[in-house]
């Protein structure tokens, strides 16, 4: 199992490295911009006050956005760009894990070896978990040395909380996309299904914020539970976030492993 995990990670090391460097680069950019933006915070706050309330809620912007470093990066970086990077990374790992092997026929190399399907699946799954941890740890915690470099006040514990939120959010996405990878024999379908669900969830969240009538819909969106401003500015993750993300990750993973162990794995 670990042989397969190591090999899968090695095969995607350049891809993973590019995401990690991208994440670090973004962190650097936001840290470098913050001292200037901080000086103009009062002017920005006035501008923000003039925006419609629903718009601010939809994008998680509050008036205190530029007063603290954590609030600023939670909205600018971790509220939109960073989760998109995470979703792309995880969907790519999951897509190549099973469905691409079936699509290309290389699954026969693995299945001809004396290793069970469950171990093949979890070998691939482990590589996704490792990629998730590497990306989250480097891209979130890279902000700390950047903040030091630009003399910005920060709370380490808040960024550790953000890392934890990123890990459970990424784990839930990995579970879902591995489930699609176990079902489909074509990696583009995995990307479409994972991406499609994420877009629908994002739209659901926006709709639930904009309309009181659809408020309850928010519970069907990952982006309701993925509350970066709360994690970074208030150093807190709601208990239901753990329950939802961990439950989805575990259930989807178990279903995926079960499905892969029973399906026809050749086309």
């Amino acid at each position, binding site marked *: 199992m670990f*042989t397969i995990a190591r*090999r899968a990670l090695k*095969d995607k090391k350049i891809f993973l490295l590019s995401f990690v460097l991208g994440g670090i680069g973004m962190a650097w950019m936001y840290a470098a911009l913050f001292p200037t933006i901080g000086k103009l915070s009062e002017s920005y706050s006035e501008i923000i006050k003039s925006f419609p309330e629903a718009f601010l809620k939809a994008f998680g912007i509050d008036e205190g956005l530029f007063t603290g470093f954590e609030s600023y990066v939670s909205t600018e970086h971790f509220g939109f760009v960073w989760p998109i990077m995470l979703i792309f990374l995880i969907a790519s790992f999951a897509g190549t894990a099973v469905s691409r092997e079936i699509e*290309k*026929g*290389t*699954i*026969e*190399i693995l*299945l*001809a*070896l*004396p*290793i*069970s399907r469950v171990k093949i699946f979890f070998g691939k799954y482990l590589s996704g978990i490792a990629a998730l941890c590497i990306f989250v740890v480097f891209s979130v915690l890279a902000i700390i040395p950047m903040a030091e470099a630009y003399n910005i006040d920060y709370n380490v514990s808040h960024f550790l909380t953000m890392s934890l939120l990123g890990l459970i959010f990424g784990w839930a996405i990995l579970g879902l996309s591995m489930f699609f990878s176990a079902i489909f024999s074509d990696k583009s379908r995995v990307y479409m299904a994972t991406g499609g669900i994420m877009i629908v969830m994002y739209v659901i969240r926006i709709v639930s914020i904009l309309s009181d009538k659809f408020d309850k819909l928010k519970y069907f969106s990952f982006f309701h539970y993925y509350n970066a401003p709360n994690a970074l500015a208030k150093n807190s993750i709601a208990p239901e976030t753990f329950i939802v993300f961990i439950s989805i990750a575990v259930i989807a993973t178990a279903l995926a492993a079960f499905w892969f162990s*029973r399906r*026809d*794995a*050749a086309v």
Partner: protein
Amino acid sequence: MPAIEIKNLKKYFGKVKAVDGISLAVEKGEIFGFLGPNGAGKTTTIRCMMDFIRPTEGKIGILGFDARKDSVELKKNIGYLSSDIYLYDKWTGQEHLDFAASLKGKSPRLDSLIKRLDFNPKAKVKTLSTGNKQKLNIILALLGTPDILILDEPTRGLDPLLQNEIYAILQEFQKEGKTIFLSSHNLPEVERICGRVGIIRQGKIVAVERIEDLKNKSMHSGRVSFEGVFAKNDFLKEGFTITGQNHNGFTFTIRGPINPFLNILTKYRVKDFEIAHANLEDIFLTFYKE
């Protein structure tokens, strides 16, 4: 106990009956040829044997193990070669070999195989020719110490010299008491190295015979030309098949005794006549026509 025993194997893909109730047994130490045209069900059968796909019905036993339940244990003893070349483009040959060896064990004959097949393991797969990719596939199939080789068209893409080398390697395996199950389109190949052959057509086994018995089947082919007109209908009897015709004669195959055909021929003025034992290909084609 047979090395391979397939009982009433069925594999349906929706309404398509890819394999429809085949049964056969392969003895230990045998080279068994599995013949059939494209779409006959050869690869589907092999994929079921390897537990890549799951049978709709039926059982497959290999070395006394259940091909599905004991799949992991079995694969320690099976060398497999796929019908198409499935390799990781970005890996080198050596990376493939190291990866497979880490899970299956290194073959004591690996170095000699690489040398015999004149294979360069350092090159990336995407830079290799089809023939070299097939060499890597063959080396991978022979990794570890398999007791059974399941090979789906092993000499595809190889030049005749390398084909001969593969035949020699397979015959050495057989001499060690190991069993080989190979599918092929290539009749001379099967005729040359296999002891027995199973013929599959439209998902069903139409014959399992020793190669010698198949060759000894009373079947002749030939051609005749006449000095005058002839009535084709005179020759349309059971066992006679007219395979081609021109203005003064025809080519034919005869199943069974040739005397009835010669008796009809004596009624005509024959200009030229040629007859010979049918080769395996003709016999094979006869099965498919039925």
